């Protein structure tokens, strides 16, 4: 007779499985490690060196560009210093504990201290990592949120309207200034409450692009539509397009002293050539050559002017022309960037239910973001733009940052 009684196979396989199944997160990686990737560390160290060099350079003469860079770097340098101090302290404490000559009392004290230092180290390494992540160049700008219904017919149009209301509520709760630039119904009128065909919301507050950047993509809805008569659940989608609103930034021609302006040209980057008299010059020749040529060194844009008999006047005109040419080039470049952003966001044509970034499920009262993997169950609060929406958006922003860190590490290690 066998010692063990017969056990059914499903029960046997259940034993092999862990009793409590752990919720696995596949896409996000929120690992708060006290170690930091060596590639990131070396990058931080090079930046610290660069910071020192810039500091020296600024001591000799002011330069608005390097001053701005210095300001950006100083955060990283501070974080690096903190991390170095914390890691040194941790290493010291560890050697103290492992040292056999240490007496027990001291060892206990060190062990107590080590925990605090460990948490400090974790905080410091996290701060260092986040400081290294390049801030999106347009993050500080106001933004435009465009909402359009995707696959799913009139249900999609209704959901698009719901999304618009959600964002408007979110803005008013977070005191962001939002204006509706365009609102068009399915019937082509601006009457509210009818399924939406297109809406553009402008959020004029600063940093709006940084906040709303994570919202771009296809939002999927699963619910029994109001238009459904047989009670079936439909899956529809609406697309959200988020663009930085750059027009605010384009300052007029008058304030070319302002480095933010398109018309700003750093005089140090321009080579001024004056057509010199042949030979000895001075009293020896009475030349009428008053031509002036300016060359913008970084772009090699060249402007020459010889209309007037007065050299200063020619110079002034040449500067004006150079400024407007560079401004034109910059505007074109910016517009191209805009086109690229537009293209990179999912186009209206391939706005299917598959490429979704987030699902709103009415039946389970659940909102799941497919990028960060977060699931929340307070659907009503989300649709009213409440605190829960904040939580979801925050998690997506963290996810984006982690992606940036990974890209940074990959870039650094590929460079070696």
């Amino acid at each position: 007779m066998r010692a063990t009684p017969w056990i059914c196979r499903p029960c046997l396989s259940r034993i092999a499985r862990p009793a409590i199944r752990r919720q696995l997160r596949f896409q996000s990686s929120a690992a708060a490690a006290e170690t930091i990737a060596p590639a990131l560390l070396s990058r931080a160290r090079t930046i610290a060196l660069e910071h020192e060099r810039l500091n020296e350079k600024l001591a000799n003469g002011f330069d608005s560009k390097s001053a701005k860079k210095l300001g950006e770097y100083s955060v990283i340098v501070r974080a690096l210093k903190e991390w170095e101090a914390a890691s040194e302290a941790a290493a010291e404490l560890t050697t103290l504990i492992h040292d056999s000559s240490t007496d027990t009392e001291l060892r206990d004290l060190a062990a107590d201290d080590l925990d605090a230092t460990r948490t400090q180290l974790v905080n410091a390494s996290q701060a260092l990592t986040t400081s290294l992540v390049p801030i999106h160049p347009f993050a500080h700008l106001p933004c435009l949120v465009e909402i359009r219904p995707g696959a799913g017919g009139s249900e999609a149009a209704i959901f698009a309207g719901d999304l618009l209301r959600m964002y408007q509520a979110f803005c008013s709760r977070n005191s962001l200034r939002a204006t509706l630039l365009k609102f068009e119904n399915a019937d082509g009128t601006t009457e509210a409450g009818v399924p939406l065909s297109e809406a553009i919301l402008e959020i004029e507050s600063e940093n709006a692009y940084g906040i709303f950047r994570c919202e771009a993509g296809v939002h999927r809805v699963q619910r029994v539509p109001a238009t459904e008569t047989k009670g079936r659940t439909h899956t529809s989608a609406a697309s959200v397009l988020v663009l930085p609103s750059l027009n605010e930034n384009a300052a007029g021609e008058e304030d070319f002293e302002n480095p933010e302006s398109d018309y700003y040209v750093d005089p140090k980057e321009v080579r001024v050539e004056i057509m010199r008299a042949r030979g000895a010059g001075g009293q020896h020749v009475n030349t009428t050559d008053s031509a002036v040529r300016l060359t913008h060194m970084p772009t090699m844009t060249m402007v020459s002017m010889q209309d007037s008999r007065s050299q200063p006047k020619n110079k002034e005109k040449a500067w004006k022309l150079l400024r407007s040419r560079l401004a034109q080039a910059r505007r074109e470049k910016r517009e191209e960037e805009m086109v690229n952003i537009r293209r990179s966001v999912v186009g209206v044509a391939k706005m299917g239910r598959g490429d979704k970034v987030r699902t709103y499920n009415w039946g389970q009262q659940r909102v799941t973001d497919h990028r960060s993997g977060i699931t929340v169950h307070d659907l009503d609060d989300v649709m009213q733009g409440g605190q829960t929406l904040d939580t979801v958006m925050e998690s997506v922003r963290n996810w984006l940052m982690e992606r940036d860190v990974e890209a940074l590490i990959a870039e650094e290690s590929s460079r070696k």
Partner: protein
Amino acid sequence: MPRLATSLLREAYAIHPCLPLLLRPCRDLQAARNELRWLCEHAGKVARLRRAKGRDADPKQLLKRLVQERAAGKPLQYLLGTEFFGDLEIRCQPGVLIPRQETAASVMHLTRLLRAALDLPPELRVLDLCTGTGCIPLLIADELTRCRQDVQLRLLGVDVSDKALRLAQYNLHQTQRKGRLSDTAKVAFIHADLLMEPFDVQPAQTLCLKKAMNYSRVPPFWDVFVSNPPYISPAAYWKTTTRSVRGFEPKLALVPPLPADPATDTEHGDIFYPHLLAMARDVEAKIVLLEVADLAQAGRVAEMAQNMAIFDGIEIWRDQPDQPAEERGAQPSRFPIIGQGNGRSVLCWRARGGSWLGKGPSPVSPLDDARRLWESHRVSSSFFDFKFNSRL
């Protein structure tokens, strides 16, 4: 001078029948086209004015005459009647030197440095010797008063030529009429011969600078001392000046007069500078800016200034002193050379001039400064005694 290519002449003729004539003085199509445009504008303007007065005028005939004169070498500035000196339009007449762009560049750079000075005196006095059209004092007044309303300016131009002085007065009047001269600037012009010593016999018409200044009741002490004297030696006059300069501009303003003592060619070209530096010392100038022909002359003038032992610093400026210095091999020079182009002027400063120019305060105390001025007087007066005795 190389002959103009026939293809170039033909190309010019295809653009405008007058252009080949203008190619003769210009040698370059772009420059000739510019000149033709300016001449056309001028002819049109003159014809309009004449017609308004009821006289008959054909702009085409006028243009033809102007182009012919220009082809003969007459400077464009004399034909058009004006030349731009910095931002100012200065009247030019045959018999008075045309203002040069390089002079304007040096003067503008000097005023730009002075504009930034924090401790300018309530009245800044500027003395310009060999003023010609009066362009230098007028430009300094225009540039300085535009952003320094807190400083009263007093400017004095000196010249030996009556014609130049009349033209300078006219230019002053014109600048005032156009509203370019603010009330805080006072400009005057006087007649004096700089090469005349105070103890020489003074002819009825001409006085030496000291006596002329006494006579006109102008103050004896000046802060800024500027001069664009005749500096071309007789040999260089024939070799390096262009035909248009030789043929139409006054030799008086270009070549120093023949010295009494026999001198070499270079010494002849440098005649004015010892006199100018002595005058700068006599008026206790804090800043001295002297225009020179080239780097070699600049070196000699800087040496002279160094030997006087009254200056805190000496610099040589090139044609464009506001541009970053050009790396043209390291010249063995005792003085810093600034800017790009030919050597153009020598800048010296003493006492408070250093801090006005942004070169830092004077290393010498005011007492020592007075002492070295006096020492310098004594050295040079013994030199004059020697000359006086030898003449006896």
